[in-house]
């Protein structure tokens, strides 16, 4: 058990950090874009919740379905 926590503390962060950073970038970009749009497909507040609370998939769903092209 101790070994495991140790192992996790040692490597885990170095490995997982890039993913967390990427997810964070994605979330921020999606959020800023969503707030800047004057209209989204469907209510904007729902998209904000989706972006904030569904990891990774949320921002992607927003980019695919929430964004108006014109």
């Amino acid at each position: 058990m101790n070994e495991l926590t140790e192992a996790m503390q040692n490597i885990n962060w170095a490995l997982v950090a890039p993913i967390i950073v990427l997810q964070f970038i994605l979330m921020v970009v999606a959020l800023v874009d969503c707030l800047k749009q004057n209209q989204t497909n469907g209510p904007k507040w729902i998209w904000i919740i989706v972006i904030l609370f569904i990891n990774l998939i949320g921002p992607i769903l927003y980019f695919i379905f929430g964004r108006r092209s014109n």
Partner: protein
Amino acid sequence: MMRQWMVLFKKEWTESLRNFKWLWLPIVFIVLGVMQPITSYYFADIIENFGGLPEGAVMDIPLPTGAEVLAGTLGQFSQIGFLVLVLAFMGTVATEKTSGTHIMVLVKPVSYSSYLTAKWVHILMLTLGSYVIGFSAAVYYTFLLIDQVPMSHVLSGALVYAVWISFVMTLVLCLSALFNSSALVAFGSLGTALLLSILSMYVPELMMWSPGMLSSHSYSLFFVGEADEGFWLSMGATVALMVVMMVSTILLFNKKELAKDSGA
């Protein structure tokens, strides 16, 4: 002619920068690529530590090999990866047609083949670019956590899989040019990709030529550095099919009435 092609290509490029496709598609592929090595690694680790195996049972859960992890990564790309790519590009031509933005482009002295091939090249660059980035991340994590695989195996396998991606994306573009409904484009291209893969799995003898064989060829390249029997056949057929699809789509697009509805 060439200049107009570049103008159209630049427009596609700027558009995908502005709608952040150049950001989020690579990120999706990086995350997908990294997931497989990490879960494989910790899966073994966790079982070992929390296994709750009976006293005296022999612990023998081998770490998967590097080749297995890389093949697993491509498996992820074939499912979630394709789904995302198809959804991202299903509207490439279809939404321009339904919104009518293509009219003022095609009324200029622009050839329809420039219009379509500029989109095609752009899609391939964006999808293959994301794939390369994501797969590089997968290789890096695999080497770090699991095990090395000879670089020549990795590169040749990755290249073969890139052809399979190109085939699917060509299909997406062609369907998008021929139909107005994005949903139809998505179902059509995902359905075709799935069908080809399944048939290749269950009746490989009949499907030697099939583009759907390419992913299993790339797995073999990872494992043993050599593709299965019939590799060149399916490679040749895939490239030929892509050319045929593009040429016939351009011809059909030429024939189609562009200004479909005069109404709003």
